[in-house]
């Protein structure tokens, strides 16, 4: 069985995995970080989005073994020193979540979007930037608002 070492939320971790172990399984089951969710089997819904080496990816379609040596950030690693990330704060402020299941993936995607597109985001850019994340509760309107406002504070 391959052994993988990676940095998850700034902490060095190591574990034995099978070839088929997905990054999301490693995160949820080996590390007990259950904030990253699985909402589909076909890499469409985006509930599993984490950052690998600074880039948003779908952890349900990424092999854990392939992340050997990588730096991974999950929703649990976004707040620093007990202070919420501006994007997290903004989702609460603008009611960008209801059931909360898609929220970690949405927030991770939103942070990535700001990294790519900058802090001034128009509605169209945000809506297209979230095409890899599905939410069934909010109708997206407040997510868009949250991302727009959160981006400015990043």
């Amino acid at each position, binding site marked *: 069985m391959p052994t993988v070492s990676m940095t998850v939320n700034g902490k060095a971790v190591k574990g034995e995995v099978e070839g088929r172990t997905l990054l999301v399984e490693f995160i949820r089951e080996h590390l007990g970080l259950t*904030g990253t969710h699985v909402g589909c089997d076909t890499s469409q819904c985006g509930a599993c989005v984490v950052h690998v080496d600074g880039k948003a990816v779908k952890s349900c379609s990424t092999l854990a073994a392939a992340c050997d040596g990588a730096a991974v950030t999950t929703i649990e690693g*976004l707040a620093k020193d007990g202070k919420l990330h501006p994007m997290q704060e903004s989702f609460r402020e603008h009611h960008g979540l*209801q059931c909360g299941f898609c929220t970690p993936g949405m927030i991770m995607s939103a942070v990535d979007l700001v990294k790519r597109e900058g802090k001034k985001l128009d509605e169209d850019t945000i*809506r297209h930037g979230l*095409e890899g994340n599905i939410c069934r509760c909010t109708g997206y309107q407040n997510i868009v608002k949250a991302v727009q406002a959160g981006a400015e504070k990043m």
Partner: protein
Amino acid sequence: MTGTGVGASVKRKEDQRFITGKGQYTDDINLKDQTYAYFVRSPHAHATIKSINTKKAAAMPGVLGVFTGEHVKEDKIGGLICGWAITSKDGSGMKAGPHPILADGKVRYVGDHVAVVVAETKEQAKAAAALVDVKYAPLAHNVDAAKAMSTKAQVHDVAADNRVYNWSIGDEGNTAAAFKNAAHVTKLDIVNNRLIPNAMEPRAAIGSYDTGMEAYTLYTTSQNPHVARLVISAFHGLCPEHKLRVIAPDVGGGFGSKIFIYAEEVVCVWVSKRVGGRPVKWTAERTESFLADAHGRDHVTKAELATDSSGRITGLRVHTTASMGAYLSTFSSCVPTYLYATLLSGQYNIPNIYAEVDAVYTNTAPVDAYRGAGRPEATYVVERLVETAARELKMDPAEFRRKNFVTQFPHQTPVIMCYDAGDYDASLVKAQEMADVKGFAARKAASAKNGKLRGLGYSAYIEACGIAPSAAIGSLGAGVGLWESAEVRVNPVGSVEILTGSHSHGQGHETTFAQLVSDRLGVDFNNVSVVHGDTDKVQFGMGTYGSRSGAVGMHAISKALDKIEAKAKKVAAAVMEASTDDVEFKNGTFTVKGTDKKMAFGEVALAAYVAHKFNSAEIEPGLKESAFHDPANFVFPAGVHICEVEIDPDTGVTEIANYTCVDDFGNLINPMIVEGQVQGGIVQGIGQALAEGCVYDESSGQLLTGSYMDYRMPRAADVPSFNLGFTCTPCPTNPMGMKGCGEAGAIGSPPAVINAVTDALGIREIAMPATPQVVWNAVQGLKKAAE
């Protein structure tokens, strides 16, 4: 309004855990010595099971057991039930076929649960499940509701023509007379497309059996854990209720699909004893959600509307065939009857209504309540008819509606419902202003210049929620009462816990319920918490669906608060040496009339618990009260949606150009949350109108839309931001004056969208979902007609 009281857009308490990844959904929970279940499902739409050989599977590494229908019978575990008995027009009872938790000799839809493998890991369970050798003999199948009564494929022995019931409501004779005397009759054939709910959290369950306590625990993705416990105890016969604890932790969306008691959760808790009490966990793969979650809608309807020469509606007549799928799910039978046909009067004064409903079996997943449950189907029928009638009569669709609005309240419709309050015109006026209907012609012309087709559609919906007066529904066949319970526990330091039978799966109860309590008791919002979702903690509850948690759940809390206040007044009177009648309570302070004596709520709470200052023979120590509330009536949210679309005739793509919605939900507890509910509902309705459709292949019976690769979920770029507004006629039957808001968006939107699409194309009818292909076909039809 600012602050944290009723009416303020308070930020949600529950968000802290969700935005930091600390939510606890069922799949996030892992118990000691946990095992994993994987279900063997039917690959056939309809087949007899000739044999099941589990030997190879059982011999696989890590496998603890392979269980089939034989084991279910051995342990005498009862089948899944349908909790609402519908009586047919001819007086006969509904034809409920058996619904075993694992197949008994037959499978009736693709995805039907045949066997289960329990193993040490989920990979082992899945690998072994692939080796369970089931020999099937395929039978004729039918997936189409419209063909159910004429097909040779008989789904259940009890229903020779696949008809579950033939039910009617209203006066057939008077309605026929109204049509005979009508100046104009508008007829439509309407299909309400089948939908797959797709809460983002797939269903999951962990069952365990404690061999020491001889008791079961079930963690499950449920909107109503107490109902699950009741059914699993009483009907599946697993154990008495006090030996089963059901916990529904954070639930990642439901939309109705998590109301029902499903085979998988019953199996998990049942087989845990068979594997020595070890916890058995199952989490649906998304494909299983598509195959085996209860679906929604699926109506085929013939509808007609009669009008007199002045444009007044004189009659409405409907025949609907409603697919129930292959089995009757928990509440399926009431959806196309009492939740549907009772709303066929819409916002209108219609003197004669007659509706007949055939519920039929098909070889498809069971169909049950999905956001709106019956009311979207009714609204779609009424609002498509009304819009079409107005166009045929060459009347402005808004004026035609206005002319026929109910304006006097209470208003008794011919189909059971008694509307208690409303001002439909107020919402219409406001919506027209907000949508700038006056400027539409100019916008249409501008679109035409760009080669685009622009259309505008109305929908004036009404719905009945806050389900429901128990005696009334009992007389109509319901197997349960639909009251709600609450307990308010005031702690000695003055903080408050509310135990409620409602259960949030995204609605924000932890916030809104705390707002009510904070307001009523003058206790800091942060000192109020909500306890729900655990049958060992909460006394009882009927759960959250049918937009009932506010109107019914909060009303129960309000009643308990009345008792708290009365009791606290007694304590305060004793401590302040005054008569209880002279004690007044306001803004969290007890005062004695005509004196300057006062006590803060917290002081009274402490006094109640230390019990030093009163005679315990007269006043019991402590401050904790509970209440069960049974609603006096449904509540009737109503409103107007105006949708403006722009269609690209080259591709058939429909864009929502503008969307306005004005709702009357009575008083709002938390406008931010209400708006969120409406926005989400509208997108689900737009999804139904333009994108989502469950497709079974007619020849093979296979589900063609079994993943997000083929089932189109609305995404962020598919919809715009909406203009939302509110009007207010307070509901007279609850002290908050509120009406439910959870489903209205999904109820009102589909006809607004389709009315806009047909307006843009200048056609009478178009099927939902009006996908680009469907719209493009319509455009080709227009071109041909023009040639």
